[in-house]
């Protein structure tokens, strides 16, 4: 065996005396039949409300009903267009390039539409960055939300747009005449054309002040950049140029500074010529970046500041006066040395909400002359100004504001001072809210303007300087909505639509004579004019250092973060996102307080597992400045001691269906836009039930699921050492399990035609979950709800398993080990080092049906509903399936999903498939499964068949880049590669021959068509 690391999925597995976990480990099937209830007690039968006669009645009725129903088929209507639009052919998808800019997520996307309705978000390959994440992938469902506002309202009454605009204009003119102050509070649009209109608007009404507000603010970083470079913007970071990355609390693989860095980051994560980038992460919560880091130091925020200062001290030589314990000090020394050694290919970032910390981070990059930090290309996705917003709140409480217009923001939910705002909204006469749904703010506003979804709107956005993107509608507005820009134009008295303004603005000031149609086709227009780097303004930083040193510490420090699935909570009504398990905690339908194991013990917080593996916890009362919230607790391995974490985006109360009103509102603690807060915590003895898929579907303790090694071993030793192939004895000779001699099966000849394989690189998979949602959208996977997920009946065809392992080669540990003197000392120190949950290493592994060439599921199906295709796909004929579930039981990978209930047209599962509008998102090429059948990943057979048919229609061979899978298409890091291994030129064949390649559970002899690439850590 290559390594003997212990892998574990839940912190509870680490205690050997936990009976439930032990049971689960050895018991593959957790759901027992309730037969005992009937057999053991005689009373239970008699107590049952259904007696024999009733049973016979039901039986008779259902038989009769079924017979009657089967006699006559329904009459189906087919209604063609009266005038068919030229570009629409029923059955053929059209693709449109557009962009999302909802104030939190900014991305260039390609929208797949069928018969005029958008059904899926794809990557726009014209765009190099700004790729869609899981939330953007899911945003198409948010459009088909029947709880959206269907028209403008005034004092809660439906009005026409003419009436609405007339009324508001009259108000505006009156307030201008009496010079009453109005605040226009908007999201970050980063839209040149919108800014132009807003400028005109504020010019016409000088009593209006425009304030940009980001729900999750990067104002401190903006301020720091302004101090250091003289421009209020964010720099971009070219992580593909980085060989050493040091991040203090900056979750750049998550949503740090708008996110979207994973593509560049992944480029250097695959060892090439013996080299790969080295990533140090210093953080409190376990974030995506921390999970992917080579070296991770869990430190609570007050210590992070000290660590940042220490690194600064080591690099600049300027004495900061920070003293740290030896172990940490030496670790930081290593980090600093490696940054200095990397020089210009190093980068230092921080996510601390502190201007001084941000200034120092920029200075460190300046000192090492980092070329990763790019000031030629600026990032415009965050423009909010905390000071202005604070001032606004101040003026609100002093009754100095007479009117508020809000667009793209939901401050009643996202302000920590929302009580002041809510009171003001009730007392102020002129409150206008532009909103897609009746959210917390719209509910309190007098005028509510219903706005369209971005897939129904026109617009533009300059995500990064020179990277202009267009937003175009892909469907006619579903409801009587008008976009913010159009309404502003109406208020300005203009007869132009926003589209006219947009087009003329682009033709005049953006396109430089290039074609508008081409820009619209591509979705983006890149201004290739080379820009100069900004000049760093050198200043004495001793004051900043001093300010940082003065920030105190606390017993418990809270770090707030946006969760991968929910972001800032705009899409809380999206069932796909609610059901998506968090990449780290694997909890869906909830947010929670993450605590470290030792803190949990101190505070009396607990996690426990129900008999079937479902996770329970008690609550913690978390208090900050008089505010107390009761939050369920999750013990998070790798959480820094003395720190706790809570995510934004949950706890919505308005404009969201009751079933989807989950979690608690983290924004309540987001005081002064600071993501770290000093809180006090008390345990509450009350049980909370989580829907956590963490302990579901155990792999029966089989090893070699994750194969990993270190860069050093990878470079110096033969692949058989770190990518070990299980051997079996054949006539007392060790033979690899893949050898045909030890195979009980006859091998099929697959050399002719296509043979599909999917390669997944564990090195570049960041666990972002975009593939999970893409698979959801492509394959009509149903949402089952919290209680069903809790019973491990989630339907995700693709899951991303997250494994923790104990760090074995932490240089810090080596030093401690060397310093051990004497036996007594060694026992205690080793004991200390062995607490694995303090700082585990993390590996992500996307697992879907492995499409085994010798599939165990196929042989046990009594009705041959699952069978093997010659092209390598394991087929599943739903109409043939009778639901014995033998296949799922015989699957070593646990990837088969059973339809326990009818998930469509069923009021018990009131999600998008039980909603006429929500059903519009369904992919017409994939059948919606019914109750009682098994389903699983089909390797997107509808897409491979489409590719083949296209080639046949054009009379050509299929090119390698034509092969598509929903998951591999959604993967922006290139971790998933799909193709035909019978094509000599294919990328996937090269990966199959790579020495890092291995199959999951090779020793079982299933010969899967999905392969993994060994994870190499640069420790």
């Amino acid at each position, binding site marked *: 065996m290559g390594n003997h690391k212990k892998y574990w999925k839940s912190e509870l597995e680490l205690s050997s005396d936990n009976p439930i976990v032990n049971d689960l480990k050895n018991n593959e099937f957790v759901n027992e039949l309730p037969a005992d209830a009937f057999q053991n007690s005689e009373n239970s039968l008699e107590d049952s409300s259904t007696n024999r006669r009733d049973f016979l009645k039901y039986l008779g009725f259902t038989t009769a009903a079924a017979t009657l129903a*089967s*006699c006559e*088929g329904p*009459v*189906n*209507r*087919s*209604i*063609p*267009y*009266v*005038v*068919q639009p030229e570009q629409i*052919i*029923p*059955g*053929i998808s059209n693709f449109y390039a557009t962009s999302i800019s909802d104030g939190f997520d900014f991305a260039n996307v390609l929208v797949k539409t069928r018969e005029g309705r958008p059904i899926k978000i794809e990557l726009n390959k014209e765009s190099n960055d700004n790729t869609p994440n899981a939330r953007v992938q899911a945003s198409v469902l948010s459009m088909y939300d029947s709880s959206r506002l269907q028209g403008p309202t005034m004092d809660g009454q439906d009005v026409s747009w003419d009436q609405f605009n007339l009324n508001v204009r009259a108000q505006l003119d009156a307030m201008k005449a009496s010079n009453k102050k109005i605040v226009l509070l908007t999201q970050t649009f980063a839209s040149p054309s919108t800014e132009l209109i807003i400028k005109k608007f504020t010019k016409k009404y000088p009593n209006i002040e425009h304030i940009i507000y980001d729900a999750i603010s990067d104002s401190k970083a903006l301020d720091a950049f302004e101090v250091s470079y003289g421009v209020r913007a964010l720099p971009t970071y070219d992580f593909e140029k980085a060989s050493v990355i040091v991040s203090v609390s900056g979750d750049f693989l998550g949503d740090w500074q708008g996110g979207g860095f994973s593509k560049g980051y992944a480029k250097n994560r695959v060892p090439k010529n013996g080299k790969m980038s080295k990533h140090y992460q210093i953080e409190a919560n376990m974030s995506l970046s921390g999970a992917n880091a080579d070296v991770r130091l869990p430190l609570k925020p007050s210590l992070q500041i000290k660590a940042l200062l220490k690194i600064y001290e080591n690099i600049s030589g300027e004495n900061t006066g920070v003293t740290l314990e030896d172990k940490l000090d030496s670790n930081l020394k290593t980090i600093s040395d490696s940054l200095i050694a990397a020089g210009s290919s190093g980068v230092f970032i921080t996510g601390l909400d502190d201007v001084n910390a941000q200034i120092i981070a920029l200075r460190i990059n300046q000192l090492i002359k980092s070329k990763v930090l790019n000031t030629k290309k600026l990032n415009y996705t965050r423009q909010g100004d905390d000071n202005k917003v604070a001032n606004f709140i101040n003026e609100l409480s002093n009754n100095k504001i007479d009117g508020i217009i809000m667009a793209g923001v939901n401050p009643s939910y996202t302000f920590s001072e929302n009580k002041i705002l809510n009171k003001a909204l009730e007392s102020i006469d002129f409150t206008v809210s532009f909103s897609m749904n009746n959210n917390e703010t719209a509910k309190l506003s007098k005028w509510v303007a219903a706005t369209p979804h971005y897939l129904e709107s026109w617009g533009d956005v300059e995500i990064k300087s020179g990277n202009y993107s267009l937003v175009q509608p892909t469907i006619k507005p579903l409801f009587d909505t008008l976009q913010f820009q159009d309404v502003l134009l109406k208020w300005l008295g203009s007869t132009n639509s926003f589209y006219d303004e947009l087009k003329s603005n682009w033709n005049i000031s953006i396109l430089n004579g290039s074609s508008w149609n081409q820009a619209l086709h591509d979705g983006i227009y890149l201004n290739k004019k080379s820009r100069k780097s900004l000049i760093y303004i050198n200043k004495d930083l001793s004051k900043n250092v001093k300010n940082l040193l003065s920030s105190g510490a606390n017993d418990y420090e809270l770090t707030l973060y946006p969760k991968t699935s929910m972001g800032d909570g705009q899409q809380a009504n999206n069932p796909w996102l609610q059901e998506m398990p968090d990449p780290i905690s694997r909890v869906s339908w909830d947010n929670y307080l993450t605590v470290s194991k030792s803190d949990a013990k101190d505070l009396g917080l607990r996690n426990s597992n129900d008999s079937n593996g479902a996770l329970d916890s008690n609550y913690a009362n978390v208090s900050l400045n008089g505010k107390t919230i009761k939050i369920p607790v999750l013990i998070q391995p790798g959480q820094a001691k003395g720190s706790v974490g809570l995510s934004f985006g949950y706890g919505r109360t308005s404009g969201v269906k009751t079933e989807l009103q989950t979690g608690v509102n983290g924004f309540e603690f987001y005081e002064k836009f600071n993501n770290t807060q000093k809180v006090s915590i008390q345990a509450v003895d009350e049980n909370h039930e989580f829907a956590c898929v963490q302990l579901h579907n155990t792999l029966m303790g089989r090893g070699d699921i994750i194969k990993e090694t270190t860069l050093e071993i990878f470079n110096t030793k033969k692949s058989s050492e770190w990518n070990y192939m299980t051997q079996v004895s054949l006539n007392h000779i060790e033979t690899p399990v893949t050898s045909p001699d030890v195979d009980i099966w006859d091998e099929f*000849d697959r*050399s*002719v*035609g296509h043979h599909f394989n999917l390669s997944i690189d564990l090195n570049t998979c960041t666990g972002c979950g975009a593939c999970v949602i893409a698979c959801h959208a492509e394959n009509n996977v149903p949402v089952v709800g919290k209680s069903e997920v809790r019973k491990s009946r989630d339907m995700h065809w693709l899951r991303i398993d997250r494994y923790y392992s104990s760090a074995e080669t932490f240089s810090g540990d080596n030093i401690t080990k060397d310093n051990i003197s004497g036996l007594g000392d060694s026992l205690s120190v080793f004991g200390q080092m062995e607490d694995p949950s303090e700082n585990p290493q993390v590996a992500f592994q996307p697992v879907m049906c492995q499409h085994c060439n010798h599939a165990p599921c196929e042989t046990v199906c*009594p*009705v041959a*509903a699952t*069978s093997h*295709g*010659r*092209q390598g*796909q394991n*087929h*599943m*004929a*739903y*109409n*043939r399936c*009778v639901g*014995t579930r033998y296949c799922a039981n015989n699957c070593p990978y646990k990837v088969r999903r059973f339809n326990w209930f009818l998930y469509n047209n069923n009021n018990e599962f009131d999600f998008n498939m039980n909603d006429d509008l929500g059903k519009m998102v369904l992919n017409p*090429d*994939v*059948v*919606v499964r019914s109750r009682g059948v098994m389903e699983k990943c*089909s390797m997107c*057979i*509808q897409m491979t*068949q489409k590719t*083949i*048919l296209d*080639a*046949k*229609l054009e*009379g*050509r*061979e*299929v090119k390698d880049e034509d092969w598509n899978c929903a998951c591999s298409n959604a993967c922006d890091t290139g971790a998933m590669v799909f193709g035909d291994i019978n094509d000599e030129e294919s990328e996937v064949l090269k990966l199959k021959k790579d020495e890092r390649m291995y199959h999951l559970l090779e020793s079982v002899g299933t010969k899967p068509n999905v392969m993994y690439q060994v994870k190499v850590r640069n420790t």
Partner: protein
Amino acid sequence: MLYFCALILIQFKQLSVVRITTLSKLFSRLLKSFVSPLALNLFFALLFTFNISAQEPDIAKGKSLYNANCAACHKLNKKLIGPALKGVSAKYEKEWLYSWIKNSAALIKSGDEQAVAIYEEYNKVAMNAFPQLSNEDIDNILAYTDYVPEPVAATATVATASGSSDSSSITNDIVLGLLVVVLTVLIVTLYLVTKTLRNIAEKNGIKAQVKESQSFSIWRAFIKNQFLIFTSVILLLLSSAYFAYGYMMQIGVDQGYMPVQPIHYSHKIHSGANQIECQYCHSSARVSKHSGIPSLNVCMNCHENIAEYNGEEDLEKGYTKDFYTNEIKKLYKAVGWDEETQSYTGETEPVKWVRIHNLPDFVYFNHSQHVSVAGVDCQKCHGPVEEMEILYQYSSLTMGWCIDCHRESNIKVKDNEYYTKVHEELSKKYGVEELSIAQMGGLECGKCHY
């Protein structure tokens, strides 16, 4: 229990393939025999075979000239883009007509009152100039427009034509009816005879008890013979199982489904008589999974000019010219076409056709694969559509029916580079000249079920 049922069902499914195909063959043969042969073009042939002397304008020539030059914009009895032309020579001077037809624009320019009036009336659209037409040609055209056909002769021919074709079936009916009557008379007389005989016997005091006791003993013997009971019960069960199976197998198979459509659209007229290519209207069959019901603007490509039906009639079924013309009016209503002004009103009303071919959701079928790649004729699955007055489901659309074809048919490799390599390798592997679809993997579950 369920599991066994399923197993049995699946086996039955496979068996049923044979049965259904033979049934469908029988069915189609029956259908063919009922569809009466058509009497085509008799009407026009009769009309224009007059022998007319050389000096007189030639109506037949005039017709062909009219069709070539005028019919695009004019109709005889109705306003189209231009005015109706019936009796036009009576309205205007001949000389004026010559100059108008040869160059109307010049006439309008010259300020001719009549010319300007027509120009104004028809939305200031000038008529095309026809300088190539000689005065004689124009005379011929005018003769055609003035011609009044003799309707009596026409209806007579139609009547005789249809009468002769139906005579055989009528005689059959009469013979069958007579047989039925004769049989019933026989039964009734037999009953009466036995009744009177019994009455006579009773009056004479004779009782027919011997016979009764005899039948009773047979019944008793039957009950006593357990083997006989056993075999007859088994026979009974088997035969009822046979019928139950037959009944269940036709559930969900809608072969012959012929619903009433909101517009009586005749494929017989469009695809049969007028020989319009299937894919002219069902154009998406070439590229998409759906063959697509044509949108109404496709209908209007032709029907903007064809406002009334002038073809064959089937008076017995009530398919008169008026009937068809009325159906065209329904189209106009749906698409919002105003015949008076020859323009669209914008008030549309989509037609809710009844879908005939309903594949279950769990089957993926792609027209373009079969039509464009394989080059399968539409008729292979949809039957003789060009003969269908009302469209019906010709094939059973069962899985067995699909599979049969996939087993029997070969792949169309020619001129398709996609197949070149794979066909060469696979045919070598199977040792055949031409690969069947099944050998290519066309029977795999996942190819159609996903």
